[in-house]
């Protein structure tokens, strides 16, 4: 594991090994542990140690990338050779927007020494705390923590690095006929209480026995932050980046400046927020900026990287939302979405619904129509009826196909409390991110079918 400064030094060595007119190198370092459990036993504990370097080179206006996880000089030279070959294979790239010049990046929180120092034994012990707190059910989920470092250095002289920690606990308490869900995430492990998470899941599960069906149609509903976060993320992935907006694929294409949502809905992307998973810069080293996406229901902006900013012209600049160079085909993405809380205590949100549905979390979402913001998926692990403003009987898992814009347009209330919900499934290089959202009561949540009952 690199210590302070070593990742940046590696990034410097990497770009300097390139034979190019311009070059930048992104180093991502990971040390992490995953104590995954099922049926109340840790069954798939995984420790990961890796350093990955992505080199982007520009030769005669042509751009190519290469990746390695060899950090010796020979490995870097080999990577540089492949990057040069990649660049030389392509015509000049008119969309190339140049490398980030030297620039200061903001100071952000996001590193906790205690979290970084958690040993595998401690990670397993924290998982055990969750398991022991819910003995009446099988417990499924994980405790994970990691320390990552991102360092970027380039031929412009720009050089930045940031160490980050993250920790998450996820718990599904389940039996054959019941299941409940809870999770918690932070960049400080001490913020998490695995036992409390498990108890929340168990309390929810205990109320899901005897689940029945409900008629299809549009219902009023309360979505807990776990559920609202996932809907928001899928909408954000398809519609809140400037590439999809410029290409006409986004819900916001041609609609910026219009009032599209309820006036109580304000949505920002703020990588600097210490209550999120803070990032000082994006994956091309551009300082992160706070972006107001929706303000009081009016669509204001999307997120940008250097490439889409160049394409838009008109003085547009990157807002610091780029992905690594090989993944820039996805366009810039909002990885720190945050919805402002409302004025309703969470426990009182069902009163705003009257009669409807209470949803804890969702499963397997799919974007049906990005231009209309239509998303399908299932509810899971804690779905209930709301009757007379009270959460009452358990329901089976329900299939929804609903319009995210209509759901937000139909806000009946937002909770005062706002929760950071993890949105990483830890594929490839570890890069912690999440959304901060309240619970939402809405008049527009459309159920199109039923699934299986709660439980295993």
């Amino acid at each position, binding site marked *: 594991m690199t210590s302070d400064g070593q990742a940046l030094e590696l990034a410097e060595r990497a770009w300097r090994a390139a034979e190019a007119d311009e070059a930048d190198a992104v180093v991502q370092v990971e040390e992490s542990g995953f104590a995954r*459990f099922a049926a109340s036993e840790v069954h798939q*504990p*995984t*420790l990961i140690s890796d350093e990955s370097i992505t080199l982007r080179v520009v030769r005669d206006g042509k751009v*190519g990338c290469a990746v390695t*996880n060899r950090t010796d000089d020979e490995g870097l030279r080999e990577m540089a050779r492949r990057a040069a070959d990649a660049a030389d294979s392509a015509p000049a790239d008119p969309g190339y927007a140049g490398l980030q010049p030297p620039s200061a990046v903001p100071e952000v929180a996001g590193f906790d020494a205690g979290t970084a120092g958690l040993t595998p*034994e401690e990670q397993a012990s924290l998982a055990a705390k969750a398991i022991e707190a819910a003995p009446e059910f099988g417990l499924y989920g994980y405790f994970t923590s990691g320390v990552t470092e991102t360092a970027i250095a380039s031929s412009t002289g720009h050089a930045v690095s940031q160490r980050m920690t993250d920790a998450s606990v996820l718990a599904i308490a389940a039996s054959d006929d019941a299941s409940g869900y809870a999770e918690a995430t932070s960049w400080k492990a001490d913020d998490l209480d695995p036992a409390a998470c498990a108890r929340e899941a168990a309390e929810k599960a205990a109320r899901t026995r005897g689940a029945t069906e409900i008629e299809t149609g549009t219902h009023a509903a309360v979505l807990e932050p776990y559920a609202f976060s996932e809907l928001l993320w899928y909408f954000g992935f398809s519609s809140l980046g400037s590439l999809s907006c410029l290409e006409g694929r986004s819900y916001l294409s041609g609609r910026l400046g219009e009032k599209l949502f309820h006036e109580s809905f304000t949505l920002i992307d703020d990588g600097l927020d210490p209550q999120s998973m803070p990032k000082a810069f994006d994956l091309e080293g551009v300082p992160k900026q706070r972006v107001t996406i929706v303000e009081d229901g009016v669509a204001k902006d999307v997120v940008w990287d250097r490439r889409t900013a160049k394409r838009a012209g008109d003085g547009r600049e990157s807002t610091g939302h780029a992905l690594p160079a090989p993944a820039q085909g996805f366009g810039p993405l909002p990885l720190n979405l945050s919805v402002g809380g409302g004025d309703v205590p969470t426990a009182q949100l069902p009163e705003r619904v009257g009669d409807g549905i209470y949803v804890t979390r969702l499963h397997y979402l799919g974007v049906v129509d990005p231009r209309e913001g239509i998303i399908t998926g299932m509810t899971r692990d804690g779905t209930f009826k709301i009757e007379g403003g009270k959460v009452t009987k358990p329901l089976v*898992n329900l299939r929804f196909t609903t319009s995210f814009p209509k759901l937000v347009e139909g806000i009946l209330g937002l909770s005062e409390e706002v929760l950071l919900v993890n949105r990483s499934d830890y594929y490839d290089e570890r890069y912690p991110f999440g959304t901060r959202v309240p619970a939402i009561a809405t008049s527009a949540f459309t159920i199109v079918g039923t699934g299986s009952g709660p439980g295993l």
Partner: protein
Amino acid sequence: MRELCGEAIDAATAGGAGYADARAVTRRAQHVATKNGEVESVSDGETEGIGVRVLVDGAWGFACDRRLTGEGARAAAERAVAFARASAGRAGRRQVELAPAPAGTGEYKTAAERDPVDVPLSEKVDLCLRAEGAMQHEDVKITEATLRAQREQRAFRSSEGADVYQEFVECGGGIDALAIREGKVQIRSYPSAHGGSSSQSGWEYVEGLDLPGNAARVGEEAAALLRADPCPSGVTTVVLDSEQMVLQVHESVGHPTELDRVYGTEAAYAGTSFLKPGDLGSLRYGSDLMNITADSTTPGGLGTFAYDDEGVPAGRHPVVEGGVLSGFLSSRETARMIGAGNGGSMRADGWSRMPLVRMTNLHLEPGEGSFDDLLADVDDGIFMCTNKSWSIDDKRLNFQFGTQIAWEIKNGKLGRMLRDATYMGRTPVFWSELDAVAGPDEWQLYGLTNCGKGQPGQHAHVSHGTSAGRFRNVQVGVRDV
């Protein structure tokens, strides 16, 4: 790499592991993407490392290290043992036991005429741009082409004496056309959506796809979809093309038959299964025409190997026979739990993830007759092609899928084009309505590279061979009301 695996195993057993296996992997992966006549990215990555899995006191542990050195191998082994010991937890936990399996020894190499990684990147870029150029149409605003090539060397050894070395190459690609007009967006892809199709083959596979030759049709169909009528809602007969059948098989048969899901070990992420161990041999999964086979020997399959990532030899076995559940995809651990077989479906993504039960190549066996024969018995129905969206519940029961394009079927013939086609169903009910499968001449093999599972997440590359199939009484045209 084999020596390093040996060092890791020695370190693990010296540390107290009752069982250990080690997997050293080098992976070279190239990716070319073009959009609207410009190169979007050209990347060439190479990574390496070693992953060590151990059983200590009946509990699993896994650790990895990027260094293919003795130091890295020993470090991974020691960390795996430490994590297993820490995770073993309370007394009385279930002790992991493995079904006996012969300790595989040998080598394997993909049969390839032309190593796809050795094909110059300039040739790949040129192919992408030529394919894009042929998709042009007034209403097509975005054209995309992607190509990929991968070479992987994998050494595996276990404390039981398994000693395997395998070299895999695979490649693939695809094209997409997005037509946009008056705020409406439609997409067409070839040979399949979401990054195209791949094969464990040499570059001759990509050449055989003939991306430029199919591009004009893709562009024209995308544009035509803008003017097409929406798919009506109702209950009708649906014919799925072989590409959409791939997704149907993958999501509603492949995943629920992964035995680790059945036993609950994926409950926290991918979900469980509506199947129970006791359903083996008795559960009616679908109609008599439903025959599903798992085959890790299929030529060109992304899930083809000589040995899986537990050293179990490749093989072929039925999963559904005549509509009855007759097999699961399993590991040595889950095979022991159910008391049948000895695994053979354990696969890991690279070196930094522990193996999980995964699909290898999972096929819908062909039936009889031609595609036109399937249509001939349809008075009123819909033919749906090429996946666009997908969602299924955590037990793999309730699903909703959408396709890029559809056509009305009237009196045995294809009629008007339809857009935004979706259908939903419950898995065994849907498959029970399968009343025709096209024959061997219509059977095609597709490879997908984005199957996700596990925590931390990992991808598997799997293949499915399918023909078009006909289903009665299907709910179609599901959208936000």
